[in-house]
Each structure stands twice: as structure tokens, then as C-alpha cells.
């Protein structure tokens, strides 16, 4: 139904990802993954811990090559990492410690896109303002709090103006207060930039709050269990939010057998 290239920023088709364990035996992390992400969508991947959420994101980013299937981003098949798929990681050490916050953004723009220095600085300040840390532009990363580091990393990724922003549990290592603050800010940033986002998380609340659609993976070897439409639920106190959270929790904790029975509890599936 959505096969036109203009309709999907990301197309994942029958992707299978195989790791080798230390003894050289193959281990299937992801199997038969197929889905599309629409322009301007906030697409969330959730699953039990260790199921391969991050693996799937790394494949879209180009760090891992699928053993079968293909991944197309903005009309081009993915074979290697590139700035059109900017990644924000969970670790606080993703900023170059030897550059200031501004320097990190300027360097990324110059290295990845060949933007001239003056333009790069302008654009860097613009995105630092967007995430609310322009005042810390001339500080070195180690002087910043965890939340500010993650804001800087998001600003750096956004400054590249990627086809898609890949967020790998970016708030996972933050305290609860900073975390909910950044969740709200991410929504606000999305509203202003309309950037397409794929977010990996293990938080049901975060998934329902931030996502338009939530892809639920089964435990490893992970297959797609269901793609839940959560666009309607943004107000955490609404009954839709509560119902969707409940539904996701069911999908995540109940064993695979109940899978078919659980489908169709009033939520759209793809």
C-alpha cells in the first residue's frame, strides 16, 4: 500500500541479522523484520531487554549488514554508516572531548557535509538554541551534566539535517526528572523541525508518549510482534494513554503463544 518512495523514508524488507557467538556459531538476533517509516513520523522500537532493538537500529544506521533482506533510507539502499542517518547514542561519551560543544557541531558539519566554517558556526548556534544549551557553546563536554551532553548530541545530529534521526535509548542513563524533561523537549523539537525519528527505548511510557507508532519485538531471536498506533495518546493522563500502555505491557510480558489472541484489542496493526 505504501510502496512509493515519497511515502516512506525508511523501508525495511525481510531483514535478518546474524551474529557469531565467541565459538563462531551463528546466532539470529533479528528475523523477518519488515516495516516502513513515513516522513515526519516518530517511530519507536521497543522490546524485552537483550532482544535486539539496538541491533535493528545499528543495521538502519549501517553499522551492521543484514544477512538477508534490505534496508532503504531516502531511496538509497544502506551499505555503510553515513550522516543522512544521524545517530544519538545512550553513552555520555559520544561528544568529542577535545572540542567544545560548539566545536563538536562545527566539526561535524565541516567533516560530514563540507559546510564552510562561518555557515557551520551559524547553523551550530541555531541548533544549540533549539535544544536550549547555546549558553554552554564554549564549554568542553566534561563540564556538562548528563542531560546537557545528550542535548548537545541531539543538536549535533539535527545540525546534519539527516533524512532520519536515529535515537538509541538517548535518555536511558538519565535520572527520572531530567528524562521526562528531555522527553518533553524532544517532542517540542520534533514539532519545530518535523524531523523523522526512530527511537529505541525500553520504557513503555516513553514509547507511548513520544511515538506515533510503536514496533514491539519478541524476545530473541526477535521478530516483529506487532506495530501499535499510539499517535492518539500524548496526554499521559488520558484513558487512551493508559489503555495503550497496558496493551504494550501485555505484548512485552506475555509469552509468544498468546500473540495472535492479543492482536486486535482495538489497536491498528500493520
Amino acid at each position, binding site marked *: 500500500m505504501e510502496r512509493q518512495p515519497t511515502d516512506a523514508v525508511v523501508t525495511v524488507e525481510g531483514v535478518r541479522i546474524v551474529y557469531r557467538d565467541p565459538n563462531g556459531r551463528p546466532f539470529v538476533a533479528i528475523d523477518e523484520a519488515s516495516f516502513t517509516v513515513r516522513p515526519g513520523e516518530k517511530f519507536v522500537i521497543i522490546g524485552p531487554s537483550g532482544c535486539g532493538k539496538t541491533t535493528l537500529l545499528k543495521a538502519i*544506521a549501517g*553499522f551492521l549488514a543484514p544477512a538477508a533482506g534490505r534496508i532503504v533510507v531516502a531511496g538509497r539502499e544502506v551499505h*555503510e*554508516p*553515513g*550522516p543522512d*542517518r*544521524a*545517530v544519538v*547514542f545512550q*553513552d555520555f*561519551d*559520544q561528544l*568529542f*572531548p*577535545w572540542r567544545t560543544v560548539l566545536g563538536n557541531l562545527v*566539526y*561535524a558539519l565541516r*567533516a*560530514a557535509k563540507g559546510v564552510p566554517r562561518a555557515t557551520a558556526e551559524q547553523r551550530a548556534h541555531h541548533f544549540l538554541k533549539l535544544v536550549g544549551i547555546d549558553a554552554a557553546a564554549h564549554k*568542553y*563536554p*566534561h*563540564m556538562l551534566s548528563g542531560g546537557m551532553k545528550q542535548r548537545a548530541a541531539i543538536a549535533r545530529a539535527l545540525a*546534519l539535517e539527516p533524512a532520519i534521526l536515529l535515537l538509541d535509548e538517548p535518555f536511558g542513563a538519565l535520572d527520572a526528572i531530567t528524562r521526562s524533561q528531555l522527553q518533553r523537549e524532544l517532542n517540542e523539537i520534533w514539532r519545530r523541525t518535523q524531523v523523522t525519528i526512530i527511537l529505541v527505548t525500553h520504557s513503555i511510557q516513553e514509547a507511548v508518549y513520544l511515538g506515533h507508532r510503536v514496533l514491539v519485538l519478541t524476545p530473541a531471536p526477535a521478530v516483529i510482534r506487532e506495530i501499535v498506533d499510539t499517535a492518539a495518546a500524548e496526554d499521559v493522563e488520558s484513558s487512551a494513554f493508559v489503555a495503550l500502555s497496558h496493551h504494550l505491557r501485555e505484548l512485552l510480558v506475555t509469552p509468544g503463544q498468546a500473540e495472535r489472541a492479543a492482536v486486535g484489542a482495538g489497536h491498528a496493526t500493520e
Partner: protein
Amino acid sequence: MATETTREIALATPTPVAAPRARRGLPTTARRALILLAILLLWQGYVVVSNVPPLLIPSPLAVAQALLQDIASGRIPAATYTTLYSLVVGTLLGTLAGFALASLAVLFRPGQDLLALLSAILNPLPSIAVLPLAMIWFGLNETAIIFVIVQATLWPIAIATDMGFRTISPTLHMVARNLGLRGLRLVVDVLLPAALPHILSGLKAGWAFGWRTVVAAELVFGVAGAAGGLGWYINDSRYFLNTANVFAGLVVISLLGILVDLLFTLIEQQTVVKWGMKHGV
């Protein structure tokens, strides 16, 4: 002014466990200067009281006099220049070669094997042992000395740099690849600065080897005559039984060693400490 203060606090907080400085009274430097002065006084007193022949132990005053005389006459500055010139050129070449080997090792599999093999064979070799070979190849000249210094500095630097490249945070490496960096660009823009704490320790170790090697090589070259460095100056002074000048040469070598250590500390303060990659000393 306000930023200055915040910065100082940010830098100072991570090291509350630093050694208790100056428990009471004088600051460290003053205390140590006093001890040094006491040692010099004891030395001077011993020479005056014991009547030991100045040929064996000259008084500190005689050493100071010899030092000032030869600084004024230009002998010590010329010898210092010669030694530092070989050392700087040798260390520079050794560093470049070390970086090149470590870069090959991180970019290509065979490069990794090459570095492992060469460093296993050549690193344990005391570099001064290569001097006779260098003399056969290059003759009794500066090139031979520089060659030996390269051999002394290359391996510690190559090994430390390689270690630095290998222990870079996987996240930082992925960020670099995400920006589309690879090859030489990846090495120069990301791997080298990320490995800087390791590289600086490698440079320190390499410099220490090189420093010992250059003085030893110059002692051997005492026979060669003209345009010698500090090692040659010491050996020459010994030949003419100018013991005070032998001491003066040793003082200069020791002072230069201290100065270079200070230089390294300064470089660390301005780079890895400032960037939070290593806590202050």
C-alpha cells in the same frame, strides 16, 4: 570573570582526594628548595673540612664556577644545542614512524601483524646496542646518533599509540563512522586526539629512552672530536681531569631533564587535563 570562577570549580571538583598539600607552614617548592640548599651546604662543608682533592670531588662553588664559565664561553650552549638537536630530530622521526606504524596497524590487518612482530623483536633491544651498526652504516656522525634515537623512541611511541587506538570508546568510533570518516581522516581527526593520553605517556617513555641513549652515544663518540654534545663534553672534561666541568655537564643534563618533564606536564594541562580525558596531577 564569572565564567572564570565556574570553570575553576568544574576543574577542581573531580580531584578532592589529591595529596594534602603543605599541611602547615611553607609551600612545597620552598620546602624542597630549603632541603636542596642544605644538601649543597653539607657538600661545601665536607669539601672544606675534609680537604678531599678537587680532582675527585670539587666543591659546589667550583662546579657553579665551571658551569658559568663554560656557559659564558659558549662551550655548554654549543654542546647543549648539539645534543638537543639530535634528540629533537630523532624523537620527531621516531614519533612519525611510530604514528605511521600504529595507523597501519589500526587500518589494516597485516599492519597489525607487522607492528606486533617488529616491536616484539626490536623493542627489547637496548638502543645503544645498535650504535656500532649505525656507525658502520653512517660513520661517526650525527646521522648515526639520530638513527639510534629513532630506534629508542619509535617502539614505546608506536606501542602506546596502538594501545590508545585500540582502547578508544566504541561509541566515539561509531560517531566518527556515522560522520562518514574513514582512512587517514579518521586517524588524524578522531583516533589521534582520542588516543592522546596514551600517546603522551608513550612520548614521555620514548623521550626518556632517547635522552639516555643520546648521552650514552655521545660518550662513545668522545673519540670523534669536534662538535660533540653534552655526553662528549663530559667525556672531554674527564680526559683533561676537569672534574668540576664533569659535574657541570651532569647538572646541565639533569636540569634539561627536569625542564622537559615540566614541558610535558604543561602540554598535559593544556590538552588531556583541560578536556577531562585525564585528571590533573
